[in-house]
């Protein structure tokens, strides 16, 4: 008898439907009316996504106040990188006591964003910035460096300009 009643009155299904119904009505009746909307989906490419301050994005070389590259070629970052994506060539520059990186190549396609390089650098000359839209159409776009076409180790890279918002 009990079993028959339970088959007749689908209380379990109603319980499930009440959960979905609650969420539906919350979103449906308060849409555009509340400061903090109930729905959690963000309109991503139009509304930029927020990242936390410690976010690990793309590797960026820093410059000091005089516009000089801060890196002094101690090669610590090159050695610690688990995927060996950093290649540095030591060199000299006139009017600078410290060694100067003639080449600082960064193969972003193999970088795993672990931040070991930043941790190992004792001169605070690199950071991982907050850029996370790092897709590109061409493989060459991932070869970054200080000179030539890939001269973009200092700013957010041109990689990632292909987002929907640009169209």
């Amino acid at each position: 008898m009990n079993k028959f009643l339970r088959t007749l009155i689908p209380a379990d299904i109603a319980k499930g439907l009440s959960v979905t119904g609650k969420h539906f009505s919350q979103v449906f009746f308060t849409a555009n009316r509340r400061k903090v909307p109930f729905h959690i989906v963000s309109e991503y490419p139009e509304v930029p996504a927020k990242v936390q301050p410690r976010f690990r994005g793309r590797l960026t070389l820093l410059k000091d106040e005089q516009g000089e590259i801060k890196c002094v070629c101690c090669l610590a970052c090159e050695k610690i990188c688990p995927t060996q994506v950093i290649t540095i060539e030591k060199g000299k520059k006139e009017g600078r006591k410290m060694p100067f990186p003639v080449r600082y190549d960064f193969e972003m396609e193999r970088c795993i964003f672990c931040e070991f390089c930043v941790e190992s650098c004792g001169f605070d000359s690199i950071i991982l910035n907050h850029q996370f839209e790092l897709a590109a159409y061409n493989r060459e776009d991932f070869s970054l460096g200080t000179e030539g076409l890939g001269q973009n180790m200092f700013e957010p890279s041109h990689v990632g300009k292909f987002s929907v918002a640009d169209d």
Partner: protein
Amino acid sequence: MFKNEEMEINLGPQHPSTHGVLRVKLRLDGETVTHCRPMIGYLHRGVEKICENQSFFQGQVWTDRMDYCSAVANNLGWAEANEKLFGITVPRRAQYIRTLLNEFNRIASHLIWLGTHAMDIGALTVFLYAFREREDVLDINEAFCGSRLTTTAFRIGGLREDLPPGFEKLVHKFLAKFSSCLEEYENLLTENRIWKKRTVGVARLSAEDAIALGVTGPMLRAAGVAYDIRKAFPYAAYSEMDFEIPTRTEADTYARYQVRMAEMRQSARIIQQCMDGMPEGPVMAKLPKILRSEVNEVYHATESPKGEIGYYLVGEKGSLNPYRFHVRAPGFINLQSLPKMAEGGLIADVVAAIGSLDIVLGEIDR
């Protein structure tokens, strides 16, 4: 005219309910499975060998990529195995933070499991709700270490940085709503007749079989064996925590569901205790500049969300990298129980069995 013939089919490797690239070879008699063998190796990267060629410090990034749903738990095992090898004592505050993040990771991993398992069986709604909460856990990961999935959260000897400002707020916000969210999932599933029909009594694995096959984690606890490394061999700060080991005796898919749901509640409890009793102090032990090992071997097991994850490390004199590195991956060993669970059942229940195993192929194939 009609012949009774067995049919052999492949489930996977690109089947959405095999959770990655698992191929299951099935021999069917009508709809009944008579023979079932999981075929693995599609995601093999040679993580163990790679780690043998990298320094102890660098090895951690590969543990992230084994079980990517519970990267923090893997990092913890790796860090603690190394600390055992080098004889390092980790400061107490670091232990607490590790425990805290590990439990958050358990919640995230179980939420993925809940969502995908329910989706395999046909309840899509839970998937969306579970991923909503998982998003908050990933935000907490991001706030602490800067990355959401492949965390590289810990360092040998402690932590890289202390908790960020505003971390408590994130945690309390999560804890405040999490129990009501769990109730939501349970309202959708626990009493649901379709869910019960698909899970109760399906894919049984008795305690004897589970122990014989070396199955650990929620799979074992759903068979009635209260074995949890957090209690049996406490690591990190678990010896100071007050929590229970949820068990069930039915040993079916439904019991595993109940065990994992109860575990999430316990995790929330541990997180609360960690936040309340967080000691002050440094988060990094004093280390030599370069870690060089002695001749030594260690095995360190921790309780990852999937079961016992063990790291076996052999050191060579003066070496920068491990001489031998081996991972006892819980998913790999739990997967061996699939034939036991699936053979004799219906083919539709194979999906439920795979789902209840909670496997991640990155860890199985390594």
